[in-house]
């Protein structure tokens, strides 16, 4: 039992997932439905893959290859830039969150394919070996870090206020559009790191659209945890366990591989349904204004 838990804690896929879920929590806490996440994750994975190939062994500082670090920075930067584009549509153009997310997703899928196809040198890269304790600690630390930011800083307070009641937040002097941009910068930094871990530590290979679908799973898990960072960790771990065990089903019970592919999606819907059927989720304050198109000069009764 304990070794199962250890296995999950140190699985790079699960750690990547944790980063993605936390990323979604931060962004949606500011009141924005984060559908563009899947597209940006996919681009991040492609960029991480390609940049690792191009940047490894190019700059050596004190005997250490700076390649991985630089490629991490490039991945994160890409994610944040794309997120800013997304936020531009939401905050400045006051577009519907769902539609913008969808439109950008489609565009970003295409972008990821282009980047991967045109820039790749070889179909695989050597995966970066990170010692398991480091991976596990990174996972735990990022959860605590996110919780700290959201619940113990003024920025976090402002972000949460926007998710509860953007109008009242504006009255209180919070500049809603600025808080949302900040939340997306923080959130998508996390997403970029997650994409990097997935591409370089876990996968090591790339085909068109690698990574597509994880974004939606992350959003669902974030919803299941009612957007609470601390609660999202165990939920992500449980899901990670189910996910990684699913392939055992294929081997041991001969369940068809396509059904196995569908299981994560079915499981995530099931998890959300279960959580939302318990009284627990009512006790936890969810961002009430999630998805509301906030326009400052809207008339109110």
């Amino acid at each position, binding site marked *: 039992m304990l070794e199962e838990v250890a296995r999950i804690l140190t699985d790079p896929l699960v750690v990547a997932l944790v980063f993605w879920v936390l990323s979604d929590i931060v962004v949606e806490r500011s009141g924005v439905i984060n559908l563009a996440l899947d597209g940006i994750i996919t681009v991040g994975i492609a960029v991480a893959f390609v940049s690792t190939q191009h940047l490894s062994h190019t700059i050596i500082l004190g005997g250490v290859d700076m390649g991985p670090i630089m490629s991490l920075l490039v991945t994160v930067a890409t994610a944040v830039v794309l997120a800013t584009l997304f936020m531009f549509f939401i905050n400045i153009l006051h577009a519907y969150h769902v*539609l913008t997310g969808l439109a950008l997703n489609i*565009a970003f899928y295409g972008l990821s394919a282009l980047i991967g196809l045109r820039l790749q040198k070889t179909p695989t890269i050597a995966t970066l070996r990170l010692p398991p304790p480091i991976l596990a600690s990174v996972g735990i630390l990022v959860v605590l870090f996110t919780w700290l930011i959201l619940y113990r800083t003024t920025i976090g307070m402002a972000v949460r206020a926007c998710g509860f009641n953007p109008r009242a937040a504006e009255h209180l002097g919070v500049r809603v559009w600025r808080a949302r941009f900040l939340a997306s910068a923080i959130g998508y930094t996390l997403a970029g790191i997650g994409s990097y871990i997935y591409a370089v530590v876990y996968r090591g290979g790339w085909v068109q659209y690698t990574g597509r679908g994880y974004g939606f799973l992350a959003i669902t898990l974030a919803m299941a945890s009612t957007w609470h960072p601390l609660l999202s960790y165990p939920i992500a771990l449980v899901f990670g366990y189910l996910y990684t065990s699913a392939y055992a089903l294929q081997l041991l019970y001969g369940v068809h591989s396509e059904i196995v592919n569908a299981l994560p999606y079915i499981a995530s819907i099931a998890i959300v*349904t279960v959580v939302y059927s318990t009284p627990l989720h009512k006790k936890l304050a969810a961002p009430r204004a999630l998805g509301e198109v906030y326009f400052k000069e809207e008339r109110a009764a």
Partner: protein
Amino acid sequence: MPRVAIVRRELPMAMSALAKVFVILLGMLIAVALASTVTRTHIDIAFATLLQSLVNLNVFLYISTLLPIAVGLCIAFSANAWNLGAEGQLVMGAVGATFVALYTPLGSQEIVAPIVALIFAALFGALWALPAALLKMFRGVNEALTTLLMNFIAYYITNYLVKGPWRGRAVYGYPTTDMVPRQARIPMAPGYSFSWYVVAACIVIALLAYLFLYKTRLGVALRALGSSPRFVELIGVSSRRLYLIAFLLSGALAGFAGGVKLLVYHGKLVEGPIVGSGYGFTAIMLAWLGGLNPLLLIPASYYTAALYILSFGLQIGSAAIGDALANTIVGSLLTLVLLADFLTRYKLVLR
């Protein structure tokens, strides 16, 4: 000190229409530019192909699948039901039609077969939309997300059927089912890959939807549901029932389109992503381009169909590129529509 602020504005109808036209023209330019870059064709050739696409009768192939889905989405979005699962509902509709055609005795009856198959297609589509609708109504779970997840599930289920229990002869390595019996297929117009019957049915569907949404009490209430569900309750209409109807109708229409695609074009069930080809998402863009008005969807679907023909007409060889190109164009177009939407609803004030 110059200051910029964003203020709501009211545009007269003429200006809104003009903005839409501008979007359409700009969209065509972008499509041509993208197409020529990606397929490495000279821009003149790309432009000429665009003009040819506009008069290529095969636009009706795309119209017959895109239009019903978009009409359904029109209804759903007007009721604030964010059904992003049209893709999955379309695929399951195809599954439903295949089921009738290949695995029931009705599948080989003249006339009856396609009709029953299409009914089942619509039914499967509606059923596929049901879980998301129920989860939203009873548990408050965001339906945009659940319907998106159901898309993936639909893809994989179809793949499973086609590779597993319904496997037919493999054609060029792609797994498919057997061909559907001749009696179940809807005859195509000679020389083309669409059916006039279906096109007529689609236009009728659009007209009926328009009449419903603008001329009946229930339909007008449905449009109010989008902005105020309580208002609808207070005029004596069950907002929950109306929401459910809107959701299921959109699922049914998407399923119907899937059935059409299968019986007219494919002739057999193929892998999920190929059956869907992203049409479900294109239809979302279409619905918004048409301003959620079923009548405007008819010209809008014609326009989108032309862009599709352009995308596929230019590529030589890889179908994947044509597919990716079409999707990128659609994505960009949707973004443009959102931009135009903004420009018509708000303006920038410089002080």
